[in-house]
């Protein structure tokens, strides 16, 4: 889908507008950091990768440690827990714990008062969320936990995080798709589940990788008689570009009554995306509002 690419582009665009921005990746990935700075990131380190733009790869275990140290009055207590194998297994086996911890860290990054010692707050956190179905589950994890826990610190914490995530003035959700049947279906399904499960709407749908649609119908007709490789290639690309337009139109129709804007990004013919290309993509997207796209 180019989700990471779009996340990086949004991050660069926000940084260019003067917002202190961080792009957060999950699941031990660091694609964005690699693209922008050419090297792997140390897990959990906030690292500056461009002017005004930082990056973090969120690790649930480290997020838990940070949370415990913050929650407990004495560091030694947190260490008792984190050193306990029983606790480690319990945390690993508790359904939804990883998701909760991941979202807790995303929330922490956006706080004025940071838990991480010496860290400064960010104006914007761009989360490169997991793929569709699981993505919404991750965003919902804090509420799910708050509901399950009812009372106590986790319930409070879960509600606080959920309040930020489901507040449209603070959190925006960006869907990224390509102009093909399945991705368009998924984008429409994502919109429905974001609305039903989070009470939010999409702020933007981005359709990535649009091929140039060069030929008019008459030109395509004229080409049908041309033998050899060039004619064949041109016809094939024309068919692909047309199929993409049809899927894009289907997405637009599906979102017509929702007011969700649909932006397109051109197919990038460069062999590897570099930082300049990402910045250019970011300018095209121009999110305008100073909100926090969740992905």
């Amino acid at each position, binding site marked *: 889908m180019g989700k990471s*690419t779009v996340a990086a582009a949004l991050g660069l665009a926000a940084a260019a507008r003067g917002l202190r921005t961080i792009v957060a990746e999950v699941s031990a990935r660091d694609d964005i950091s690699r693209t922008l700075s050419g090297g792997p990131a140390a897990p959990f380190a906030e690292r500056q990768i461009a002017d005004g733009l930082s990056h973090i790869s969120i690790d649930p275990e480290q997020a838990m440690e940070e949370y415990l140290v913050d929650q*407990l009055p004495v560091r030694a207590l947190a260490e008792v827990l984190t050193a306990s194998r029983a606790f480690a297994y319990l945390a690993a086996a508790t359904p939804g714990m990883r998701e909760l911890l991941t979202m807790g860290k995303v929330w922490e990054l956006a706080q004025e008062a940071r838990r991480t010692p010496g860290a400064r707050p960010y104006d914007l956190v761009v989360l490169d969320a997991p*793929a569709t179905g699981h993505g919404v589950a991750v965003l919902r994890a804090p509420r799910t936990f708050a509901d399950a*826990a009812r009372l*106590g610190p986790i319930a409070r914490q879960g509600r606080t995080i959920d309040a930020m995530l489901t507040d449209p003035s603070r959190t925006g959700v960006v869907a990224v798709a390509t102009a093909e049947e399945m991705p368009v279906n998924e984008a429409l399904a994502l919109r429905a589940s974001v609305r039903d499960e989070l009470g939010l709407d999409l702020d933007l749908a981005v359709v990535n990788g649009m091929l140039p649609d060069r030929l008019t119908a008459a030109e395509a007709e004229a080409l049908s008689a*041309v033998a050899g490789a060039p004619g064949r*290639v041109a016809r094939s690309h024309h068919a692909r570009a047309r199929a993409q337009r049809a899927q894009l139109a289907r997405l637009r129709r599906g979102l017509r009554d929702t007011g969700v804007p649909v932006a397109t990004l051109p197919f990038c013919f460069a062999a590897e995306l570099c930082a300049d290309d990402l910045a250019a993509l970011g300018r095209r997207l121009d999110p305008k509002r100073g909100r926090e796209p969740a992905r």
Partner: protein
Amino acid sequence: MSVADRLVGKRMCIVAGSGGVGKTTTAAALAMGLAAAGQRVAVVTIDPARRLANSLGLDELDNEPRLVDPARFADHGLEMRGELWAMMLDAKRTFDELIERLAPDERTRDDILGNRIYAELSGAVAGSQEFTAIAKLYELDRSGNFDVIVLDTPPSRNALDFLDAPDRLTHFFEGRAVKLFLAPTGLAAKVMGRGTGVVFSILKRVTGVDLLTDLSTFFRALSGVLDGFVERAAGVKALLGDPATTFLIVTSPQREPVEEAIYFRGKLREARMPFGGLIVNRVDPGVGEPEPLDPGAVEAALAADLGPALARKVARTVADAQVLADRDAGSITRLRRELDEREPILVPHLDGDVHDVDGLVQVYRHLFALAPDRERLVVRPGRAAPGAQDAGAA
């Protein structure tokens, strides 16, 4: 080597890769090909595209394999000498069924299914889908009804969850944690206020009593199905490492899925799981000529017939196509190196979406192509065109 050669003697074929690379279609085409060759094949998929599901005759999530009517393929020139069965997995329901089957009595079953932790979280969590899928696979394998089972894995970004799920569950249930929970003086008792264990008093402070109570109820109830679960997890683990099991990695030549494929291959190595081969979908066919075309020459040659404007457009499209093909060739070279895979199976980009029987048959023909046909799809490093057959004719 066609995909058929790689699957000789395999009973279990797990198709892995990131979302959006045609994984489900590949799994279905693979199963179709094996069935055409005379085997009884079940393809297990999770939430496929509606049209793909329909093309296999699946109308709804249904936890039992259904026989796909061979007449569906006969019209497309494919004779089913074996049988193709298909099912769409409902992860949550499969998990519920597993609990129902393993619970020693109704009370335990109801305790688990009614537990809020279970109810709220079991369907929506990384790892549970993966474990459920594998557990279903294990069950289908044990049933002895199929020669080969093809699993289309959930579009999980975290391949680790998939491979780790059995181990994590087994460790948990055999570990100290669960004993602490389940002993008469264990956590379950302690959270009720009688015990004073250091770990648990701290834990209580962090989580709150309610959550801990629910968790202890959850794990205590789960202890009723413990033996079944441990046995199941051990069986699943053995199945994953069995010589008759193989993982096929599917990718497209785009950067993100390529990185995902490399990452997944590394995880397979670490977990000592068998890697059966790489399938690269959507390879740009380029111009289909042995040597790159010069766009200037193309323009000049066509200008007289087509007029300068259209000739120029064609030339630019040819140039684009060569850039795409070069980039794909670069990705494939990198994949070969990183995955230690000399002969990835390449499927060219097919015009239009591949979600109907026609599309499946096309993908099948590429996957199962014999050596002479395959030769034409091989990408030579540094060459512009993979030389795939004309996708425009599709």
